């Protein structure tokens, strides 16, 4: 997948690196690979979400290793030169620039959230609908709740998951969350 890095136009590559660093600095909840991939595809580049995800992971690993070892910009660029021999020049330029501007500020944070082994919940969007009619029932009047959960996976990449619930299911769902909250209080 790292060969595909050369396909990504420079400005999109810069945006990807920016998002990765900002995620590491806890300024944004995750990296919007899906949205970025769509925009790259719209610009005419043939890259799929799997490849972009791998590239994002590689870059995340690169930046976090550099942060942990307190690498200066020159040290980072040298490491890039020796290790990943196939990185195109414009990519190295972007990495050098991004690291120079924001690399040192990466907080070696004492935060419990660093231990991300599962996805992190980011946001919930919802919709309450009533299905009026369908090919099997002319008059349905069937209420349902649609929920979209935005989750950042352990590598920081954001995905949306949508699903439907019937009203009784929703009531159970709500009850479970209230219980979780009260356990969280008392623990």
């Amino acid at each position: 997948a790292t060969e595909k890095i050369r396909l990504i136009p420079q400005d999109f590559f810069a945006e990807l690196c920016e998002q990765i660093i900002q995620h590491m600095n806890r300024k944004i909840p995750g990296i919007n690979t899906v949205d970025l991939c769509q925009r790259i595809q719209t610009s005419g580049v043939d890259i799929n979400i799997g490849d972009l995800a791998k590239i994002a992971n590689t870059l995340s690993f690169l930046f976090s290793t550099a942060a942990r070892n307190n690498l200066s910009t020159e040290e980072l660029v040298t490491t890039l030169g020796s290790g990943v021999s196939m990185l195109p020049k414009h990519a190295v330029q972007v990495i050098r620039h991004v690291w120079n501007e924001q690399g040192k500020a990466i907080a070696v944070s004492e935060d419990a959230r660093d231990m991300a082994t599962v996805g992190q919940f980011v946001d919930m969007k919802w919709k309450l609908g009533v299905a009026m009619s369908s090919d099997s029932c002319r008059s349905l009047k069937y209420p349902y709740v649609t929920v979209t959960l935005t989750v950042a996976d352990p590598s920081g990449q954001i995905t949306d998951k949508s699903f439907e619930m019937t009203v009784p299911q929703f009531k159970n769902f709500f009850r479970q969350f209230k219980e979780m909250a009260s356990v969280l209080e008392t623990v």
Partner: protein
Amino acid sequence: MAALRDGDFAALQILLKAPSKDAVRQLCQECFSSPPAALGPLAQRAGPGLAVSAEEAEQLVSALHNLTRHVVYRGLSRAEDILCLFPENFHQNLKNLLTKIILDNISAWRNEAQASQISLPRLVDMDWRVDIKTSSDSIVRMAVPTCLLQLKIQEDAALCGNNPVVSALTMELSKETLDTMLEGLGRIRDQLSAVANK
């Protein structure tokens, strides 16, 4: 969407050859639940029991499928409405039997239709656990309560046929994110009450 056709009622009278009322009932249920594509095999299975030709079995199964689905589509729930679907010269006892069978099954069938209509993936299960993070390689002592949630989501049944795909979505929630979630859910609950009262 099944519409009743002219030949359907003629085909239904083949049921007069059925061995018992239970056999008719069973066939009605199978014909309703079967998707159009599976009617052929169903006719092949049903034919021998009725001592009819393959062609007659197919016509019967198709007619029964159309009749039962039509009743559910229109939302008919009273005996009179179902009885008047039948033509004048239709066998009286068979008409009454079919109407009774349909009335007995109508609400289960309606639920089945609702459950199998197109929809987004559905939530099928939810498990959760509250943990306390006590230490890590970067922090020696801490007591951070955190919630682990796993949702099991089943993809659209209509797209997966008989092998629905269930995926598990696991995520962590902190006290803050859990409160955000609760706030959103509370608003849904308020909207539901508002809609219910209309």
